[in-house]
């Protein structure tokens, strides 16, 4: 089994969580989100972000507003809805539990 495949699967699983986490701090537009995700090396190709944003918006987790830009076309600024905040809170809990579970297994003495 290739390590890259396992890494890709792990990354994919937490990408949506990371997107919501980024947006939860400030309303932001796609390039802001991409910058953070790339700095954290959680996203491989930028294009992946757009279908996920739309999926999260359609699920009622995100909303957006348009803002004019002096550097190009108007930008969509995303923010979490109330449902999105609740969902993120439950993901935070799940993430902590997951880390604890993995750590417990990895650190168990023989």
């Amino acid at each position, binding site marked *: 089994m290739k390590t890259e495949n396992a890494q890709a699967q792990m990354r994919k699983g937490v990408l949506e969580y990371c997107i919501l986490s980024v947006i939860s701090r400030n309303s932001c537009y796609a390039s802001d989100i991409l910058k953070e995700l790339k700095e954290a090396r959680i996203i491989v190709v930028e*294009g*992946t972000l757009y*279908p996920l*944003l*739309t999926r999260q918006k359609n699920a009622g987790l995100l909303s957006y507003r348009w803002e004019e830009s002096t550097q*190009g*076309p108007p930008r969509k600024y995303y923010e979490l809805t109330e449902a999105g905040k609740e969902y993120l809170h439950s993901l935070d809990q799940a993430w902590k539990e997951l880390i604890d579970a993995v750590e417990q297994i990895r650190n168990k003495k023989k």
Partner: protein
Amino acid sequence: MKKTIKISLQGMVFFIDEDADLLLGEYLSGISDRFPRQEEREEILPDIETRIAEIFTDRLGGKRQVVTLEDVKAMISLLGRPEDIFEPEEGEDSSSGTASPDPQTSRSSRRLFRDPGSGVLLSRPELDIVLTGSGKPELEIYKRARGNTRQAAVRHAEDIDMQWETRDKVIILRPWYRFGKRWHVQ
């Protein structure tokens, strides 16, 4: 000397080399074809085009005026190939048919016919374009809805950005529709 083409990406105008334009067109078509549902395409494609415009603007840096093939290749490596971008939604299985692409817009529904007279008949899911005439062609655009076909418009070649060559060569249509989709007819 190279020929350049003027294009618009979400309202941003760029000059682009012909070879670069061809690759860009193929890329956008490839992405467009990947959307299982039309409403997703209408929503996401403009966002992707906006990002492409940003990438081109950054790469040109106010120093160059023309988008080159290298710029388009660099953009694709940043954004990713269509097959890298789209992954099945949870619970979707392409073999199960539970969330299969809308047959009206799926790749398999695309058919291309050659008109023995002078041009090419391109059949798209929602629109048919018929090229007629042997010199500068007219475009007859037909809309299909609920099983009916009706003529929607007739356009002269000058009305849209298109390249017309002999039937043995490549014919490129560049109508920039609302969602930036364009059709390359070969």
